[in-house]
């Protein structure tokens, strides 16, 4: 379709993407230049370009929706989640800089791959076109597979990368097959055009055809979000990769996948959903099936994640199961298929970002002190490192959902949305699972503060940079929902999706 925008006008909409692209080329070339360099410089270079992209994105927060180059969609949801991934990668780079157990191997490539993943995420969240969505998903995925296997002589890392690439490629292949079926039904990759066709199909009573493609597409999203029954890779991969990369997979890659899922469901099926006035809403039998599918997945995911976490001793494995459980909570908001549900899912994703990044930062901090990533390695360290210890307690309270943290309010919104969307059993299950999660989160706090360190306790140096980052994230976990501009942007962004 012809676009009213001229090429140069269109270019200014994708300046953040341009900044990241230039940045990743610069990092790659910098790494190839001859001469002795310290690995840190690449990280600072990447951080600089990410900051530039973030500045450009902040300028674009209040821009009206536009589609440029026929495929790239610039709207509030896209911009908010581009900021989300940019800042998440920023934190991951900072974690990497603060990590004292540097091996020096593959550093330049790590920074390059993190920026590639950022670029892929930009396209994943910023498009209404299913082919570009697939391309974004794969750019993010391929960078993540390579990131997982970057340490060549590490057996765990190699195994993690292998499991990740096989399951990931399978899931995205199945998603693509589902997209091809949707394309055959609707004759277009554009979500808005699909929505128009699907309304017609539903009026003719043919919406049952939609079930198979929807199921196939959900396999792809389910893998990225580690939803049951596509979660098997997550614990092995998180344990096998370095802690900053695990944080990126748990937070960045999951957050943008959630944004893409919300956009896919809210736009493609907008004719079949039950939104308020101003939308196309009309309930059909397909709507009921979709709610059932999503809510069963959400319920099974939180059950599995929380129950399996109970018997873990490795911190990263425990956090992997915990992040599976949280993916279940977030999907519960989507499953309600209401505007309130989407909003609470997006808001909780931001809270989850603070708490989970913090929790992985905590693992990094204490692993630097004790050299161990097991819960037993934490013994007594909380008293020696009060700042990190207190921050950890905040993250754990937030992940459990205890008041007064943002985790409590975020979960409360999700449960209210599910309750009013008719998914009462799911809201009750969430409350029950929060109680279960108290047991395993408390084990970490207990190891930190209530266990005697014994004689062999290492007297590690403080790590002020990492401590500061943890304090920042802890403040976010406590007060994030009071920080209205960002939350408004998240809530507003969903509204722009479903009114058109």
């Amino acid at each position: 379709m012809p676009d009213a925008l001229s090429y140069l006008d269109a270019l200014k909409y994708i300046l953040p993407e341009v900044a990241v692209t230039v940045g990743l080329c610069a990092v790659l070339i910098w790494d190839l230049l001859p001469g002795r360099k310290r690995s840190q410089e690449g990280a600072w270079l990447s951080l600089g370009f990410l900051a530039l992209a973030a500045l450009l994105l902040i300028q674009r927060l209040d821009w009206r929706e536009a589609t440029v180059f026929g495929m790239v969609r610039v709207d509030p949801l896209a911009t908010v989640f581009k900021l989300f991934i940019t800042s998440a990668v920023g934190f991951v780079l900072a974690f990497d800089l603060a990590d004292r157990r540097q091996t020096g191997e593959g550093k330049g490539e790590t920074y390059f791959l993190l920026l590639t993943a950022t670029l892929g995420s930009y396209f994943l969240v910023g498009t209404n076109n299913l082919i570009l969505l697939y391309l974004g998903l794969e750019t993010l995925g391929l960078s993540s597979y390579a990131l997982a296997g970057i340490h060549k002589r590490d057996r765990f890392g190699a195994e993690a990368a292998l499991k990740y690439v096989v399951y990931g490629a399978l899931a995205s292949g199945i998603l693509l097959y589902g997209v091809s079926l949707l394309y055959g039904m609707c004759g277009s990759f554009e979500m808005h055009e699909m929505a128009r066709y699907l309304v017609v199909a539903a009026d003719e009573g043919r919406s049952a055809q939609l079930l198979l493609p929807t199921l196939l597409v959900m396999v792809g999203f389910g893998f990225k979000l580690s939803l049951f029954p596509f979660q098997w890779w997550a614990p092995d991969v998180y344990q096998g990769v370095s802690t900053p990369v695990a944080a990126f997979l748990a937070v960045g890659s999951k957050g943008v996948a959630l944004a893409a899922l919300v956009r896919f469901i809210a736009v493609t099926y907008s004719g079949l959903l039950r939104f308020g006035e101003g939308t196309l809403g009309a309930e059909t039998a397909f709507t009921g099936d979709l709610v059932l599918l999503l809510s069963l997945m959400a319920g099974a995911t939180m059950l599995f994640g929380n129950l399996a976490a109970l018997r873990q001793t490795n911190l990263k494995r425990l956090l992997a199961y915990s992040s599976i459980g949280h993916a279940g909570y977030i999907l519960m908001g989507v499953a309600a298929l209401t505007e309130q549900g989407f909003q609470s899912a997006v808001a909780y994703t931001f809270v989850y970002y603070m708490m989970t990044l913090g929790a992985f930062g905590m693992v990094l901090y204490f692993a630097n002190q004790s050299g161990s990533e097991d819960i037993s390695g934490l013994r007594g360290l909380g008293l020696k490192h009060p700042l990190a210890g207190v921050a950890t307690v905040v993250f754990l309270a937030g992940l459990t959902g205890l008041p007064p943290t943002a985790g409590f309010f975020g979960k409360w919104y999700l449960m209210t949305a599910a309750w009013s969307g008719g998914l009462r059993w799911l809201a009750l299950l969430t409350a029950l699972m929060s109680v279960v999660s108290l047991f395993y989160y408390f084990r970490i706090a207990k190891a930190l503060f209530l266990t005697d360190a014994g004689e062999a306790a290492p007297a590690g140096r403080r790590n002020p940079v990492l401590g500061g980052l943890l304090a920042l994230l802890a403040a976010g976990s406590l007060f994030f929902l009071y920080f209205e501009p960002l939350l408004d942007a998240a809530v507003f962004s969903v509204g722009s999706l479903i009114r058109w």
Partner: protein
Amino acid sequence: MGLSAYLTVGALLFLIGLVMVAARRNLIYVLMGLELILNAANLNLVAFNRFRPGGMEGHLDGQIGAIFVIILAAAEAAIALAIVLNVHSLFETIRPDDIDAMKD
């Protein structure tokens, strides 16, 4: 030949690919299965575009989408093979069931 012939071949390719991945006999086998799945989707895209109601004049999105997917499949194969090569040199096997160093 009509659309349904192409779709049948596509569905068969998809199923063969799934079985090859699920059988987990050999990692190269698994990667071939993954490629078959992508090609099944590609065949669908191209066929749906060719038999589009109203003709394909001015609507080539399916064909172009398929080209994108071919490029991605190449990139994916490159990364997957690199990872398999590294696994092979560390574990000295490419049977998926033998590669299990991490336990619950």
